């Protein structure tokens, strides 16, 4: 173990200037710094382990990828007074439909124009700009050192260490590319497992799940589904769940790339709403606006069945979000909160504006931004917001993300605002 002073050297091995205190950026080499929550050592972005104590850094956050540590349950001590201190913001004046991806000191913005911006989380400085063919509709994934992006032509993996640290790493910028046929199109966000990347591809009114080798991008296997529309993928352990427009809910064993169970609901599944999980229940919204749950423990007997989850009473559901205690439903007039058994805790109409994006729920705290750009902050015990604050001017927001010490808000006009949780 090194002394405290040594831990606060600049994390750039070619610089190593003494930082004196925990600065966001080295004053000499301008390297962005982040810090180990365990021993406070300075770290370079993309570090997966603390260089001083070996602590594993769980700092990957993305809304669309349940394999990343989305909104980890953490004991945050939230004080309303100081929570919304604006740290930095960026306005790119273009279209962005994919929510940002945050991983170990960087923020990745995926723009519809085909550009991918990699920013430093500390102050928003652009570290690297990557270009692919537009449009880019989904948040990429970061797995190992690869940034994997779904484009019109196929799936491209960029070497992030090469992108950020240039010739300090091996190889070129593009690690691999999987080419799609001209009639194929990626329709849902990619998903990474330990050794695979799973792609949902639509072709001739059918949907295929394609399993690619994560290291090489080579096709390993595929599964054809008899539907043209599906929900986002939901990975739970080694089982992958997907709902289809024709009402089937399918469980796939990712180790064998094989369908192990399926069930048919009476109505089609609303494929615009991502499934969420509460403990052993996986929740889907059906075409009639009701929420149904699949019990994942039944999969041991290769069974899958559906049960009604509470009564949403005809809400126009736009998005679901959940932790292990609560389900938050974003709907046409506000949000509704349900407990893990499906009992409604409360429902509030806020300013009667629609809420399109997922709420952010961490322990007993909920953040949500309505479609006019006002952020509401609740404690789950009360339907009266503890704070309301305009964040954006009449732009539909993307789901907010809470990292270790920052709240990241963004919208479809590619405006990003970072609030520090001091």
């Amino acid at each position, binding site marked *: *173990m090194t002394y405290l002073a040594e831990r606060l*050297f600049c994390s750039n091995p070619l610089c190593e200037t003494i930082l004196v205190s925990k600065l966001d950026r080295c004053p000499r080499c301008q390297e962005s710094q982040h810090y180990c929550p365990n021993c406070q050592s300075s770290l370079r972005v993309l570090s997966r382990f603390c260089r001083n104590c070996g602590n594993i850094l769980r700092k990957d956050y993305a809304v669309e990828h349940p394999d990343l540590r989305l909104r980890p349950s953490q004991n945050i001590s939230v004080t309303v007074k100081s929570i919304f201190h604006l740290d930095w913001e960026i306005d790119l004046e273009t279209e962005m439909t994919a929510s940002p991806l945050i991983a170990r000191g960087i923020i990745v913005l995926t723009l519809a124009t085909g550009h991918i911006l990699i920013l430093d989380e500390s102050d928003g400085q652009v570290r690297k700009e990557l270009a692919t063919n537009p449009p880019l509709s989904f948040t990429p994934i970061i797995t190992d050192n690869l940034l994997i992006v779904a484009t019109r032509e196929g799936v491209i993996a960029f070497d992030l260490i090469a992108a950020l640290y240039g010739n300090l790493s091996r190889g070129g910028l593009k690690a691999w590319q999987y080419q799609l046929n001209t009639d194929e199109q990626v329709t849902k966000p990619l998903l990474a497992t330990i050794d695979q990347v799973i792609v949902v591809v639509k072709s001739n009114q059918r949907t295929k799940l394609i399993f690619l080798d994560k290291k090489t991008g080579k096709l390993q296997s595929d599964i054809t589904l008899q539907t043209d529309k599906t929900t986002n993928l939901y990975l739970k352990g080694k089982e992958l769940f997907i709902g289809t427009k024709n009402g089937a809910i399918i469980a796939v064993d990712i180790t064998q790339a094989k369908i192990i169970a399926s069930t048919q609901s009476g109505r089609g599944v609303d494929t615009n709403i991502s499934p969420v999980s509460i403990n052993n229940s996986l929740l889907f919204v059906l075409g009639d606006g009701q929420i149904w749950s699949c019990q994942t423990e039944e999969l041991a007997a290769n069974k899958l069945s559906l049960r009604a989850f509470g009564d949403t009473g005809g809400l126009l559901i736009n998005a679901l979000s959940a932790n292990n205690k609560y389900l938050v439903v974003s709907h046409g007039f506000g949000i509704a909160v349900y407990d893990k058994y499906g009992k409604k805790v409360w429902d509030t109409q806020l300013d009667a504006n629609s809420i399109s994006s997922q709420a952010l729920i961490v322990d007993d705290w909920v953040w949500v931004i309505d479609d006019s750009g006002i952020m509401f902050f609740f404690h789950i015990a009360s339907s009266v917001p503890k704070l309301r604050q305009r964040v954006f001017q009449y732009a539909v927001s993307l789901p907010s993300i809470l990292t270790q010490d920052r709240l990241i808000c963004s919208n479809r006009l590619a405006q990003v605002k970072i609030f520090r949780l001091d």
Partner: protein
Amino acid sequence: MSGPEREEPKLCQKCQEWLCSSKDAYCAYCGTALVVIKLSEENLVLSPAGAVLNISNSGLFKLYWAAEVLSPEPGIANYFSIRPDYGSIAPNNEQAFLVRLTNQKTKNLRAEIEIASNDPHRPIVIIPLLMEEIA
């Protein structure tokens, strides 16, 4: 007092992905320890001529070590000598040190050698010292 001399940063041998500093204990990308101490013996049998222990470094950066004799009985540690009792070992190199009993008339001593190093996994290694029958 000057610290250890600065070594040039090196690419991690295991993952070949991450440039590591000599101040680092672990590769920040794959978590591998960057200094690894290896000892030729895990128990040291002390003959009248003494005993030799080899320390080797299979890590990426220099290994810094220091050794001393510990004993539960007061003053016993002074009966032993270690030469050298500290050093630095470049990667993939080794160094030997000699442990001797300075007072040959003493018997049935209980002692051990403590080796401290900058190996993050084994910052302290204890080697029991076993006495050969001393005439």
